């Protein structure tokens, strides 16, 4: 018997069936795995610095310009202050024993191995004190130098310690220092708009080689 036209159309469609998506799914699954492997799972940012200065050696008349430098040695940081009322002053911040803390553990419950590391918290505290003193309130640049074999990781962390203010002036240990938040202050732009910006310590960094 003749099949009605609407049922015939439906019959033709039913005969076609769903497209076979399994091969395409297989390719997609492989591609997704490859893309996940290639995906960068960490946050890559940039640190800006200025062109380095190179000392030509030799003495000279003491500069009237305030000059602040942090020198990274094998076992310590040395803060050198020149100019102003604190001519030729040096502050030494030695390495100290620190304990590795798990990211999820409280600082009081650090149970990782103990090792010797630079005292970045101590360096930050000294620089914060200097910034609060009347001589260095307006100074925003700092020179950073180091011994030839000091690793880039140490320099990067030194830059962190000199660049911006944190929520406290002093930290009791390395763990609380590492977990500190940057201090934010209100800044009013020329057009009157208020915004929250990170408070600077010495944001302009110049590498020096002695």
């Amino acid at each position: 018997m003749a099949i009605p036209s609407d049922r015939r159309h439906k019959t033709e469609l039913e005969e076609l069936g769903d497209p076979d998506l399994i091969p395409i799914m297989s390719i997609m699954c492989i591609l997704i795995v490859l893309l996940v492997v290639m995906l960068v799972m960490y946050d890559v940012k940039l640190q800006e610095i200025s062109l380095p200065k190179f000392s030509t050696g030799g003495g000279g008349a003491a500069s009237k310009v305030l000059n602040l430098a942090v020198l990274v040695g094998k076992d310590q940081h040395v803060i050198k202050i020149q100019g102003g009322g604190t001519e030729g002053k040096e502050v030494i911040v030695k390495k100290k024993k620190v304990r590795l803390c798990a990211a999820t553990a409280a600082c009081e419950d650090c149970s990782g191995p103990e090792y010797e590391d630079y005292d970045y918290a101590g360096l930050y505290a000294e620089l914060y004190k200097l910034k609060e003193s009347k001589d260095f309130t307006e100074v925003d640049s700092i020179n950073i130098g180091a011994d030839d074999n000091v690793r880039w990781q140490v320099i990067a962390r030194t830059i962190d310690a000199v660049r911006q203010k944190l929520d406290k002036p002093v930290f009791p240990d390395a763990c609380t220092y590492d977990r500190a938040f940057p201090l934010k202050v209100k800044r009013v732009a020329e057009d009157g708009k208020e915004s929250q910006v990170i408070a600077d310590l010495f944001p302009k960094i110049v590498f020096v080689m002695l």
Partner: protein
Amino acid sequence: MANNEEKNNGVDINQLPSGPVEEWDPEKKAQALARRKKRRGEKPLGLSITSLMDITTIIMFFLMMSGTSDPLNVTQGLKMQLANSTANVSAADDTITILVDRTHIVLDGKAVVEIDCTIDKGQCTDADFEKLNKCEASPDDEICSKEIRLEVNKQDKEKADPNSLIIEPLRKELDKLVKEQMTENEALGRKFKGVVTLILDRNIPFRLFMEVIYTAGKVGVKGKGGLSQFRFAIVRVGAGA
């Protein structure tokens, strides 16, 4: 009679309702449809993967966009571990990228200078690199306190002077690249920015990266500018991360 019933899957044809299918009892209608499909050899519909296909397509596009949108596409591995920092400046396009890992200085994807690596005066091996990569998690390991020297061979220095700060092959390649970019920018009416992005392994010594910066700082064209801004790629850590 019994055979006929078997052919019709146990249903007596004489018991089927008469009249159009649409007027049948729903249960009888479903049975009739199932029998028709079975006769035509159609497989019953299984799991629908159309929705799954939609999801995987969306996930794939998301991963493709994530992977390609970052202008600073850095892959950490055996010979390259970025330093940690709290800096928060985002990467921008249109910079010259210099990568310095434990074995080479790479400019725009091309290795231009080899780096000599020694640990306690012995040549570095892949096993040493693997142990070094674990220093962050286990800083009390023996290798973490050893002296690692990463330096450019004196033959690659200006006038083969080991105390020179200029790395000749890097300077030549940077010079070529900068001139090309300046010409391109002039043709397009753009200003040459002279920004260098340095991707450094965390173990690179201060001396070596000062040599790289000094060499880059010497490149340029009189009156047109040169490389004057430097940015270092780091992995963001800290409470604000």
